């Protein structure tokens, strides 16, 4: 197992290298220069200053030289300085955004698992009934609903018309004066809608996946054998079928990481949450090259880690597979 894992991690290196290559070239081959923003905003700029700025950002050097220099810095997690007026370190900017996005995504992943497994099993064990058809149709509805529209409708209903929930931000204005219990509820109130929006599509997609796996597993011979032995149906479903049906779901969980991160751009910008998605949106609007590159590399790195964790989970869950 150790051997398999180390080989698996070594195989990640060329992929990671490819990720940096693609990120760097995409952004550099695009027209317009990162200095444009500063130049446009400043009326007192002269050609000499532009030249100095270009030198400062190494724009006067050929692209491969810049790439190698950028890669060297990357090895020490140094993505350079942001081009926005605050001029802060890109890594610092991203670092303070990561916890919120990961927390929201972990919570919604947890919710997705909790709801989609029983739902998927229900659908699979009730095939052909009206209740199953209704559930399947509903899951199609929720699978197809655009998250940004759902967010807006929820804000409209619960925030604007009913006034039950805050519509944006992470904390209330008087957050500082609250006790720790109140602080928790304040955060929860602000995060309820974003987490709901982040989970709904996932629940629909996952429950469909669980039910189709369950359909396959229930046809296996060991289930027939278990039935022949007279084991109660409830035990068969729970112990024999469910465990086997859930193994492939682990892989899909790992593969869903980039989708979840992509989704955070939408709900973080609608609900004004200071996470990675919002930072990407802001950086894109400001043409902040170093931050965008840093975000692309870090999020794809998170995806790689997600896939690795899924592999490890798969290994633990399925003793039939021997890794060498």
């Amino acid at each position, binding site marked *: 197992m150790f051997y398999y894992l180390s080989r698996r991690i070594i195989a990640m290196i060329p992929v990671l290298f490819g990720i940096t290559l693609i990120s760097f070239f995409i952004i550099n081959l695009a027209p317009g220069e990162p200095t444009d923003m500063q130049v446009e905003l400043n009326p007192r700029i002269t050609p000499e200053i532009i030249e100095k700025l270009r030198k400062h950002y190494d724009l006067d050097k050929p692209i491969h030289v810049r790439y190698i220099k950028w890669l060297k810095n990357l090895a020490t997690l140094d993505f350079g300085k942001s081009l926005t007026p605050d001029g802060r370190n890109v890594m610092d900017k991203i670092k303070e955004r990561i916890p919120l996005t990961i927390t929201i995504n972990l919570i919604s992943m947890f919710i997705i698992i909790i709801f989609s497994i029983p739902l998927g099993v229900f659908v699979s064990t009730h095939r052909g009934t009206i209740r199953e058809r209704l559930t399947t*149709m509903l899951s199609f509805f929720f699978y197809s609903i655009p998250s940004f529209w759902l967010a807006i409708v929820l804000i409209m209903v619960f925030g604007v018309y009913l006034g039950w929930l805050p519509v944006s931000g992470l904390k209330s204005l008087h957050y500082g004066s609250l006790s720790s219990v109140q602080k928790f509820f304040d955060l929860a109130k602000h995060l309820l809608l974003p987490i709901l929006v982040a989970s709904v599509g996932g629940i629909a997609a996952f429950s469909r996946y669980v039910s189709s796996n369950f359909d396959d597993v229930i046809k296996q011979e060991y289930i027939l054998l278990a039935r022949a032995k007279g084991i109660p149906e409830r035990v068969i479903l729970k112990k024999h079928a469910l465990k086997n049906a859930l193994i492939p779901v682990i892989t899909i969980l790992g593969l869903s990481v980039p989708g979840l991160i992509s989704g955070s*751009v939408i709900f973080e910008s609608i609900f004004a949450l200071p996470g990675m998605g919002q930072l990407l949106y802001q950086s894109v609007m400001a043409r902040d090259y170093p931050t965008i590159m840093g975000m692309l590399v870090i999020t*794809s790195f998170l995806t790689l880690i997600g896939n690795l964790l899924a592999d490890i989970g798969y290994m633990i869950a399925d003793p039939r597979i021997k890794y060498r």
Partner: protein
Amino acid sequence: MRETFFQQVLKRFNARKSSVISLFIIISLILLSFAGPIFLPYSPDEINVDAILLPPSTLHWFGTDALGRDVFTRIVYGGRISLLVGFVAEGIAVIIGLILGSISGYYGGKVDSVIMRFADIMLCFPTFFLILSVITFLEPNIWNIMIVIGLTGWMQIARLVRGEFLTLREREFVLYEKVLGSSNFYIIFKHILPNALNPVIVSAAFGIAGAILTESALSFLGLGVQPPIPSWGNILTSGKDMMEAAWWLSVFPGLFIFVSILCYNLVGEGLKEALNPKYYK
């Protein structure tokens, strides 16, 4: 009389009412957005100061926006863009996926590992992050949007086609063609590809739904189709800032995005059951 494969597929597809209805709705939406304007009394960008933010009525079915423009008319025109983008973007993805997947699966070896590694790398990027980063550096017009969505969506199809090719290339009819001295190009496109198309068709239906979603999300964030050209996404944006004053600006464009995505997904599901031998009864 024996049924042809096509007749069988049609029969199985027709058995799923939800998919048939969805196909009908998609066709109606396309007809509405391309032929509908002939019958509409309003123009999509005609500003009318006497009709600002009117709620839905018999005169303005979906109400009017902050500039007094008829929302129904704008949605009809927006449908052209949103539906076209979905179709063309997925078309680009399918073509790239078919070509790379065929080459990868047919030749195998080094070519295969290079192409598949490239697909792996592309799959590591959160797609929407990648699209957002690229789109900022281009002019946000619909052509660029279609190309970018297409260029970031081919990986799944390439993998599917490659998988089909890996098994098909070992089959006897391919061997016969090789013995006959047919060129690789001829074998790939004339003999193997038609046999590998079923999963691609299914994946493309879901892909169109995804592309419509991506375009409307981009336009919603202000990085897609630019006003005054209407698209479902950017009409929704104008509604976002006026939730209290005009609910109809948020509800209707979103409903159209939702319904078209739902219908493409249901058609995809119907095709999956109709084309996949796993479901043959």
